[in-house]
């Protein structure tokens, strides 16, 4: 995201300097040409993202339930007020917070550990670097199916393995027990998503100038201090991107939820996205459903802004 800022129009810069910095040039055919090139993309985005956004804001301000399709009454912010005061919302918000917090935290830590390992050279490192692309390539629906099969209460591999190791004495219904269901959901999601984090961190680690480590070692730094004062600050920008990407992914998690727990048992894994889905497509209540969806959008925007404020400035002068 910094590329856009770096490449902002260099108004008033001498032509030679502009060439050297590879900044944008004035179009031979004028600005109209640039807009012409963007026209198809603008049409697609406005028609299929812009219009739906405005439309669903409109829907969220109305009472509109497909079970009573004749009623389409303006209710202002009533839908939002209804949701905010409902116990279902409080529960879904809590479940979403727990899922997002743990999923993002574990993905970042696991991604970082794997990246620190795989950015070194050792026999077989190339093979492992290739293998971590396997979870990345697996569609979330198949990932859900795979873990459902592993967690199976009667004939699952997880039960068999844990019993053989003596960790459990009896087979467990992993997905029918609330805390286990949440843990199972998080670990399945982590398995699917940690490779992207690891790959981004490897990319960032390879850009750390090695002289810094030499200098640090001359100054008598221990390896932990080298990590703390050189590696970590250099990862700042990659960390920001991983955090934003993964938070967005965790907040909108749906496919794996649908296959693995369907929000259950009870409401133990009913996230905001799942609550939106239920409200919209089970109750056919499009008004409240759209309001729910907006709350998720708002949370995404707030969290991204927060990350930017906390991390962006700090990493700016280090990259």
């Amino acid at each position, binding site marked *: 995201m910094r590329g856009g800022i770096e490449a902002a129009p260099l108004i008033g810069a001498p032509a030679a300097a502009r060439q050297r910095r590879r900044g944008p040039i004035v179009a031979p055919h004028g600005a109209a040409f640039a807009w012409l090139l963007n026209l198809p993309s603008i049409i697609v985005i406005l028609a299929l993202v812009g219009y739906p956004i405005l439309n*669903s804001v409109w829907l969220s301000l109305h009472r509109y339930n497909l079970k009573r399709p004749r009623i389409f009454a303006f209710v202002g912010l009533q839908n939002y007020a209804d949701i905010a005061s409902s116990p279902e919302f409080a529960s879904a918000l809590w479940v979403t917070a727990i899922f997002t917090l743990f999923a993002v935290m574990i993905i970042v830590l696991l991604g970082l550990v794997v990246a620190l390992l795989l950015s070194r050279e050792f026999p077989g*490192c190339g093979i*492992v670097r290739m293998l971590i692309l396997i979870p990345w*390539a697996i569609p979330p629906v198949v990932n859900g199916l795979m873990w459902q099969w592993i967690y199976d209460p009667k004939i699952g591999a997880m039960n068999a393995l844990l019993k053989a190791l003596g960790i459990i004495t009896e087979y467990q219904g992993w997905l029918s027990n609330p805390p286990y269901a949440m843990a199972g959901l998080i670990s399945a999601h982590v398995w699917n998503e940690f490779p992207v984090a690891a790959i*981004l961190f490897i990319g960032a680690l390879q850009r750390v100038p090695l002289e810094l480590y030499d200098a640090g070692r001359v100054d008598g730094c221990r390896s932990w201090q080298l990590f703390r004062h050189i590696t970590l600050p250099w990862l700042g920008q*990659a960390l920001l991107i991983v955090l934003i990407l993964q938070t967005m992914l965790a907040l909108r998690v749906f496919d794996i939820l649908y296959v693995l727990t369907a929000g259950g048992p009870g409401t133990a894994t009913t996230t905001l996205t799942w609550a939106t889905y239920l409200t919209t497509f089970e109750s056919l209540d499009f008004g409240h459903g759209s309001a729910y969806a907006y709350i998720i959008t708002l949370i995404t925007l707030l969290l991204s802004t927060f990350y930017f404020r906390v991390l962006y400035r700090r990493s700016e002068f280090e990259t």
Partner: protein
Amino acid sequence: MRQGRLATALMMGGGVLVSLYVLVPFSWLVLTSFMRESDVLVVPLHVNWGDLGLHNYRAFINPQGITAVVGSRAAENTLPSILNSLIAAGATALLNLVLGTLAGYSFARLRFPGRMPLLLMYLGSRMVPGIALIVPMYLTVKTLHLLDSLGALAVTYLTFTLPFTIWLMKGYFQVIPRSMEEAALVDGCSWPQMMWKILLPAAAPGLAASAIFAFMTAWNDYLFAVILTSTMASKTVPVVVAGFATDVTTERTLMATGGILAVIPPLLLALLCQRLIVRGLTAGAVKE
């Protein structure tokens, strides 16, 4: 930097752990797809190594041979749904290349009023979660009488893949020396000729990476596919596979086989194009 033997051994141990973490769950699914249903129902779990085979895969090619009622329906649908997915994801990738190249070029090379706001609009459109767009999209597609069509699905996928493609292509074009295209233009090439003959071949790795990411995103989608499709005219493979997984009467070995079949195309892409993907992911996210 020289590493001691102990350090190397430790790192290799770590490499083995990571490999096991990645491979064990997936291998279990692969193994299940080769097993007989009667063997997977045995407690405690054991693998009948002598009786592994391709019988489940054969059942997908010739679904009439299957006894499980519900399982056979999903099995029948799997191969056609893979074809649907290939068409929808392939079309998404193609549309991305055309639109993403044009817009990406404008951001990499041209200075024009509204450049930053436009770029931010593209990137910002990715911030809105799909679940917030699905109802109005559904209503729009319904009004246009395009429900249950692969075309509508591909255009839908275009919206959430295009911003990343534009971003990626912008980056790839920016590192190509401008002198190449200026020389072509001086030599009398028109702009489209220059793009086709000079710039696009030079940006081939970027095009390939963009196409792969768009293809994968479209292939993986479940939310939009399940809402916008209803019959085998356009059901994609995640929809059929989710049908397997949420149906308790389905045979587990058939379910595993369906899952494996759905994984084969993206997995092949990932393993064959490893370098392109890794470079593309890193280039898309980390910019100086």
